[in-house]
């Protein structure tokens, strides 16, 4: 099959369950099998989206900024921490358990603390997105750096390469496939982190969900949740595109099966 055919298949395959699910939900709600105040009909969600488009778009923009900023911070900090941890076994043994501990702390419990530290507003949302998404970058980049092919390390040693040269010309490029895996996971988590931050600090889609919930506007809650999911998908797609452009000539994960 040519690449056009593959692309079509890649886009069409997930559309089929989406269409089936939407039609089933519409049917079940309209026929009264599911109560509309629990699950709204897809047409009601669409109507809420159109009616509240200005508010929703503004909220989507705010959440996008918070998620993206938190995600970029996670990517940069995560890579830097992974490089630092990989520099010595002692540093790794001393600090890596804390990175794992950091990951296990429930974000929803930490979010109020973030408000105390950073105040209400975007800075708390960014911090929340960062806390939620930094660990996968650290773990995957570290694993990639540490699993560099030993004979290649020998080769660099044989020709007198410094640690810095070995890092930039061997270890980091070799870690790219795993780094992208970490970034894919991290992209979704950054959106979740931003929404959690918005629940507490206000603004964005998180705030829309919270307000609509108290007004029992379940259609608007679904509309906001759908937009948040689409934002996560867009970030995921962006990372996939970057991964494809970077790895397509040399890594099996980006080559036709």
């Amino acid at each position, binding site marked *: 099959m040519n690449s056009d055919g593959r692309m079509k298949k890649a886009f069409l395959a997930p559309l089929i369950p989406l269409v089936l699910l939407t039609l089933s939900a519409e049917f079940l709600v309209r026929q009264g099998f599911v109560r509309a105040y629990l699950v709204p009909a897809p047409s009601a969600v669409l109507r809420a989206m159109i009616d509240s488009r200005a508010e929703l778009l503004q909220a989507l923009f705010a959440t996008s900024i918070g998620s993206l900023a938190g995600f970029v911070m996670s990517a940069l900090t995560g890579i830097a921490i992974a490089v630092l941890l990989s520099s010595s076994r002692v540093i790794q043994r001393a600090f890596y358990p804390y990175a794992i501990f950091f990951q296990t702390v429930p974000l929803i419990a930490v979010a109020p603390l973030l408000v105390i530290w950073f105040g209400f507003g975007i800075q708390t949302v960014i911090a929340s997105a960062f806390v939620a998404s930094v660990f996968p970058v650290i773990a995957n980049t570290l694993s990639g750096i540490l699993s560099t092919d030993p004979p290649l390390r020998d080769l660099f040693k044989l020709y*007198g390469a410094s640690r810095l040269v070995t890092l930039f010309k061997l270890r980091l*490029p070799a870690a790219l496939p795993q780094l992208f895996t970490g970034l894919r996971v991290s992209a979704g988590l950054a959106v979740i982190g931003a929404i959690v931050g918005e629940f507490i600090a206000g603004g964005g889609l998180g705030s829309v969900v919270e307000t609509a919930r108290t007004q029992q506007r379940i259609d608007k809650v679904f509309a906001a949740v759908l937009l948040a999911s689409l934002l996560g998908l867009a970030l995921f797609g962006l990372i996939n595109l970057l991964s494809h452009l970077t790895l397509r*000539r040399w890594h099996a994960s980006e080559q036709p099966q």
Partner: protein
Amino acid sequence: MTSAGARGVEVQLDQVRRVFDNNRVVIAGMDLRIDAGEFLAVLGPSGCGKSTLLRMIAGLAGPDSGQIRMQPNGQRFETAFVFQDAHLLPWRNVLANAALPLELMGEAKTKRNEKARAALHQVGLLDALDRYPAELSGGMRMRVSLARALVTEPRLLLLDEPFAALDEITRFHLDVQLRELWQRRGMTVIFVTHSVSEAAFLANRAVVLARSGGAIKLDRRLELPAVRNIELRSDPGLGQEMRLLLGAIEE
């Protein structure tokens, strides 16, 4: 016998001993002298210390005791190493892979690319400069690896079972190519292999190591013609040398 116009280094091992972390003595006091410009094959069963010996000569691991001396003990980077698999950088194309050692040594881009092209020309890969390792066959990858080793014009070339994973025909072509390169360049070559036929076909001298402790069971100068080609494969002399080497391994 050494190659014409030898510019290789002489390698002298004096009572070299190497012990692994689990206290296993891999090499227990080895004495071995390899003449400048010699093509030496090192044979022996798995785990007998062949690869460890090569890594120590390359300076990638130090002996626990004893000495390894080179004569002349000149500049750095005069040693090149070819591994069991090609081990290329998959994100670099053929030219950039072949030029890597020079890049690490700080050579300017134009000059290192020029030298890399010359090395790739020697292994017949000039038409694949822009291709990536994933787009090459196993034999082509190995030839890039060989070009990468030759690009610095080393005086000592160490090969650790480089063609073991290749099919018989590719392996034979690479054997012939390696032998020609050695004759042209006059470097010292130490070639570790499991294959008795490959050792006898390629080398001028072969040593067989014992299963443990790296003791030398046989050290033999191979009595074969200087030109090694397809006719030699059916030469009774080659068969005789192979029998001797095999006998020493199985002893």
